[in-house]
């Protein structure tokens, strides 16, 4: 095998050396919240890299491999502007989490590593017509019924069973499929990124194994950091925009955080393995094999996009089916007890995706493939693709906090189009490994502490609970302050948790 490696290096024409890792002094502070690593820091970087954060967040980037991974992302062929990390950044695999990288659609590459395994992991926000006081007496019942209505756990089976043929329709049509099956309302579809259907999905590019894994899981939460949460709006920063989104102080809302389950994981897995040979075929040099990619305009690149779009649509349907489960649970517990138990959809956003969008690069308008890995689209007012009723204010951006802490609803802003290819943060961002969190926190203690704060908790395992302890995360408020300060999204309301279901 040693010989084989040597041969590979000779073919590549250069010896493999470990790239330098940047230190804080290698960065230039461009603005209060913008830190830039120049392109000439490493020979293989094609663009400069930018980290967004205040001084403390910037300092945290050097405690793990975030900075090295960000510089690695800057080496992707066809990348334009900057390789960027939103302020909730942390070490991932291949790309850092919080990573945004845009490549030229005509000559750049698409990278499954720049999207991740949980393709279209995202958040859906449902609004109610209830005040927090109205729901308080029923919170325990509601949480128990929700736990049953929205299946969770590893390999957990979903609410819907679909045949292989139905699955193929589902992944092509996304939310429209759910609409046809009576599992969605027209307004749900309108209030979903891409109207719940990313164009270009090609089930012919999806492996039999991905389909096999996907079929039983439609309408399931999964495990890990995925959750379902009942919250109350406890602070309104922008009453006008809040009103447009149907949000007001004291109102009860529901967040659903999950993705494309085994289907998406398998699609990513298949292509990260399958494209390893494409990297060699197209003579692409990569500092980390997880950054594996192929030219967008190659058979391999097109195949990945077609399969990824299927997983994106699967995730939209997954959250849609869970939303219907939430509606059922509310009806079951609250019918006859409150005036209006219905839930309406505020919005649904993707956190892990690659999409074709047009952006200004320098003074040129370009069609780009924007990779967002742990980042949210944040289109400002007037952009096509936004629902008609939100077009004047901008796109809702849903930023869940760590368990038991606040979450935020933001609105996309014009500055995001100028600075970040229309992107912003997606959450709090981890600071501590899961093993360390487990050593420092007992799941059972954390549960008691959350309950002492009046938060009802239903979790698959105490260990899983401990790993998701707020201690292991950055302060989401700090992250949100940075994106608000940068102007790449503005604060609209804050949500405080009342009940949590963790996968």
């Amino acid at each position, binding site marked *: 095998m040693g010989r*084989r490696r040597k041969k590979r290096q000779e073919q590549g024409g250069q010896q493999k050396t470990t790239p330098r890792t940047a230190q804080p002094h290698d960065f230039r502070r461009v603005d209060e919240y913008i830190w830039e690593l120049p392109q000439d820091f490493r020979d293989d970087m094609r663009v400069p890299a930018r980290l967004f954060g205040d001084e403390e967040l910037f300092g945290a980037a050097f405690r793990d491999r975030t900075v090295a991974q960000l510089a690695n992302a800057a080496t992707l062929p066809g990348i334009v502007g900057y390789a960027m990390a939103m302020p909730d950044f*942390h070490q991932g695999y291949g790309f850092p989490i919080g990573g945004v990288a845009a490549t030229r659609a005509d000559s750049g590459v698409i990278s499954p590593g720049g999207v991740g395994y949980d393709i279209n992991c995202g958040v859906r926000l449902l609004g109610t017509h209830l005040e927090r006081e109205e729901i308080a007496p029923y919170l325990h019942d509601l949480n128990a019924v929700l736990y049953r209505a929205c299946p969770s756990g590893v390999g957990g089976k979903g609410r819907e069973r679909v045949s292989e043929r139905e699955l193929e329709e589902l992944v092509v049509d996304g939310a429209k499929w759910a609409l046809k099956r009576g599992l969605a309302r027209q307004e749900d579809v309108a209030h979903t990124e891409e109207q719940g259907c990313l164009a270009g999905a090609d089930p012919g590019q999806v492996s039999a*194994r991905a389909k096999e894994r996907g079929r039983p899981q439609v309408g399931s939460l999964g*495990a890990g950091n995925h959750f379902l949460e009942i919250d109350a709006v406890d602070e309104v920063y922008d009453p006008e925009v809040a009103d447009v989104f149907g949000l007001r102080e004291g109102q009860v809302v529901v967040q659903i955080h999950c993705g494309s389950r085994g289907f998406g*994981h398998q699609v990513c*897995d298949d292509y990260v*393995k399958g494209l*390893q040979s494409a990297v060699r075929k197209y003579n692409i040099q990569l500092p980390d094999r997880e950054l594996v990619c192929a030219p967008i305009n190659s058979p391999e690149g097109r195949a990945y996009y077609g399969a990824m779009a299927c997983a994106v649509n699967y995730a939209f349907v997954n959250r849609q089916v869970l939303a219907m489960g939430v509606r059922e649970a509310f009806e079951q517990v609250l019918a006859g007890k409150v005036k209006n138990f219905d839930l309406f959809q505020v919005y649904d956003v993707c956190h892990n995706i690659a999409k074709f969008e047009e952006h200004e690069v320098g003074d040129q308008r370009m069609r780009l493939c924007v990779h967002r890995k742990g980042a949210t689209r944040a289109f400002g007012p007037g952009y096509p693709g936004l629902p008609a009723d939100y077009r004047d204010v901008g796109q809702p951006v849903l930023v869940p906090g760590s368990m038991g802490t606040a979450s935020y609803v933001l609105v996309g802003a014009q500055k995001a189009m100028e600075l970040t290819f229309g992107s912003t943060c997606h959450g709090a961002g981890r600071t501590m*490994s899961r093993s360390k969190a487990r050593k420092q926190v007992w799941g059972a203690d954390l549960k008691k502490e959350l309950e002492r704060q009046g938060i009802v908790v239903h979790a698959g395992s105490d260990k899983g609970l401990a790993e998701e302890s707020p201690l292991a995360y950055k302060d989401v408020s700090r992250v949100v302050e940075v994106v608000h300060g940068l102007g790449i999204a503005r604060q609209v309301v804050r949500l405080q948790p009342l009940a949590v279901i963790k996968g």
Partner: protein
Amino acid sequence: MGKRFEEIEHTADVAIRVRGRDLAELFVNAAYGLACQLSDPDALDLTIEQEIELEAYDAETLLVSWLGELLYLSERDECVLADFDVLEIASTRLRAVARGGPVQGHRRHVKAVTFSEMEIVRVGGGYETTVVFDV
């Protein structure tokens, strides 16, 4: 054999460092490292046996495929595979037997086996690599 793998710090996911005197031992130890993420291997009743045959582009892809296959089987059959015999191995081909037992849910959800930081290198009379699991 000493410690079969060690967990190394990773902010969001789980990373292990694995060594083996030869490729076969490296693959077995990595698989054991995965099994320990999913359950307590000592508590398993080894009633399931599965033969696995794989071909891949190179040794790293073979290792990712091997671990991915074990992960897939453990999810599909609600089991954990923790005892292994490598029958045949080359850098692009593997034939092995994996034994394990049924479990009631996994200890943690491992979404996937990544290529991140993976590079099988020769170290003093053996092989070593890092494996990062997406959790």
